[in-house]
């Protein structure tokens, strides 16, 4: 019984890590622009595909096992991050910035984000077809066993990465100059340009960081759940968004803990009740939390929230 519980805690940590990583991406963009970037789940999906294509390309030149597997991963990860960032910045440049500069209401930008997500899904469908793709195995799987509790090296990597990303973001946003600029824009979008802060540059930086997060999550996700399809980012993206809201959207700590919380709620419900009721109970709990505390755990009430 105890082993099962410990095993499920590991399961929840790993699954929650993915929610967390995606939720952090939502949170970052929201924190700066007050924009719910609904395309984020699909950027995550595109990142998984970029990783898939690039790994396939590299495997033509080197074997995907042993030391080489790690080299493949070490090259794939930065390349995917760069390419995904370019996509994120491109989306910001063509879809969000024009609207922002015309002073459109935020609601329209959110709807644009939804449409961008659909464009990415269907664009992917057009390029890769609807068949599921298999993400190649690149690192040799090692299973560690601690008295019946089993954890793979990949799971350890996922959990550690999520925590490292969180610490990195906390530091950047709270301790660095650009982080201060980000917080400043979030505080007052109109006054800040007058202070000589290049708003667009900071926004581009935000999208680079957010998309890189999606890239890391996408590649790790592909490695953990190696069946890719064009709609894979949709549901997990929505759930991560909900996790970010419950954690208190706009707050990095909130998004991070919210992701883990959703992971734990989902896993513990299945382990104690029935798997049939997973989403029903999970979202009822989240709903109740929001009703009691509409700003989420760490959020601060702001009248301009949508």
């Amino acid at each position: 019984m105890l082993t099962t519980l410990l095993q499920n805690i590991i399961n929840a940590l790993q699954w929650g890590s993915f929610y967390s990583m995606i939720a952090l991406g939502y949170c970052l963009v929201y924190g700066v622009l007050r924009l719910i970037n609904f395309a984020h789940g699909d950027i995550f999906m595109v990142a998984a595909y970029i990783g898939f294509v690039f790994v396939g390309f590299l495997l033509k030149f080197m074997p995907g096992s042993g030391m080489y597997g790690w080299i493949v991963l070490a090259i794939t990860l930065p390349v995917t991050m760069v390419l995904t960032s370019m996509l994120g910045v491109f989306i910001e440049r063509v879809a969000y910035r024009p609207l922002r500069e015309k002073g459109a209401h935020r609601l329209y930008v959110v709807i644009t984000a939804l449409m961008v997500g659909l464009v990415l899904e269907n664009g992917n469908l057009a390029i890769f077809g609807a068949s599921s793709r298999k993400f190649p195995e690149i690192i040799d799987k090692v299973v560690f066993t601690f008295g019946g509790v089993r954890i793979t090296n990949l799971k350890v990597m996922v959990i550690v990465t999520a925590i490292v990303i969180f610490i990195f973001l906390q530091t950047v946003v709270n301790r660095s100059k650009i982080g201060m600029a980000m917080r400043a824009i979030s505080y007052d979008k109109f006054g800040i340009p007058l202070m000589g802060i290049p708003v667009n540059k900071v926004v581009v930086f935000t999208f680079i960081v957010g998309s890189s997060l999606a890239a890391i999550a996408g590649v790790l996700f592909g490695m953990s759940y190696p069946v890719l399809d064009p709609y894979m980012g949709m549901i997990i993206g929505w759930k991560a968004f909900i996790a970010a809201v419950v954690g208190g959207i706009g707050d990095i700590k909130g998004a991070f803990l919210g992701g883990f919380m959703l992971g734990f709620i989902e896993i513990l419900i299945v382990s104690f009740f029935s798997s049939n009721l997973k989403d029903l109970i999970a979202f009822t709990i989240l709903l109740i939390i929001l009703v009691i505390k509409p700003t989420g755990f760490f959020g601060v009430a702001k009248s301009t929230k949508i």
Partner: protein
Amino acid sequence: MKKRFTLLLIIVLFVSMVPLFAGGDKENVIKIGFNIPMTGDIPKVGEASKFSAEMMKEDINSAGGLEIGGVKYMLEFIYQDNESKAESAVAVALKLIEQDKVIGIIGPNSSKQAIPGGEVADDNRTPMVSPWSTNPATTKGRPYVFRAAFLDPFQGPVAANFATDQFGAKTAAVIYNLDNDYSKGLAEYFTAAFEKLHGKGSVIAYESFGQKDQDFSVQLTKIIAAKPDFMFLPIYYNKVALVLPQAYDLGWDGDVLGSDSWGSAELVTLAGDVVKGKYFITHYAAAGAKGATKEFIDRYNAKYGYIPDDVGALSWDALGVMIQGLKGMKEITGDIAADRVALMESIKAIKSFAGVTGTMAFDSEGDPIKEAVIVKVSDSGEFVFEKAVAP
């Protein structure tokens, strides 16, 4: 501005009506519609259906067409994508029936679409043959709906018996896809059959997941903790590729049995080594086939470059059934409603149809009476015949 918009609207309306006028009065053509998933979760299934159909169409049309009542008719196939969604399958069925005026429909393939699709076909008195659907509800009480595959209530006991004989299993676990009629139905039939053999409570873990779920670690942790003798997985091939590796990571070491939804050419591509040596129930086995079945497999492989999976073979048979039905009609009157009724009567009257998935006849519900096959995935990834099980 407003005028221009009205003009545009009129043009769009006219353009969209062109096919209606163009398609109406061609002589000596029989139209058959296909309600198949060409995008969505299982596009390979739609592709296999289409490829088989194209092969059959070439055969018949190059021989000068199909002879019905002394007149030769060319075949025209209309492929429509149901996106592997129930609501799209309904829309596609309606479009094929009302707009394209097809005489009959092949598909949908999965029960999730075939059950609502069959309702539309039956309400509109249009014959429909589903190649792959195995849930009883698809044809039940619907005289116009037929199928080429055997049923889940039959597949359930086959799975229970095979596991008992082959694995010596006394306890079982099931993991199934909650929002899929096929998977849920089969999980229930299997449980009923297994508990009949080994007593109540012998299915010691019964877990489910949602269509878009990717992590099954907690369900599998529960199953592994219950220590069943084997695990029954009535789930689609793309989920098998996620469930099995996760199960082994979590320490699963028992036997595994799959259902006919594993039978896709993509199973081994997606799942890799973990499915090798596993058994699953299916409709036909490509490796070791003889006679007409072998001929079909060789031709398909030569034309499209891969061994047809069971959907390909069943689509071939479903279409074969419809064509045998057409041949059995006295004449094509041109009155589409009357012809559809005549086709339904004719399919119903088929005494025995020799298909590539076995010889079949139809019972009063429009379900075939035929054998199931159990195959083993070999080390080279082929589906090798293990055992045939008769009803």
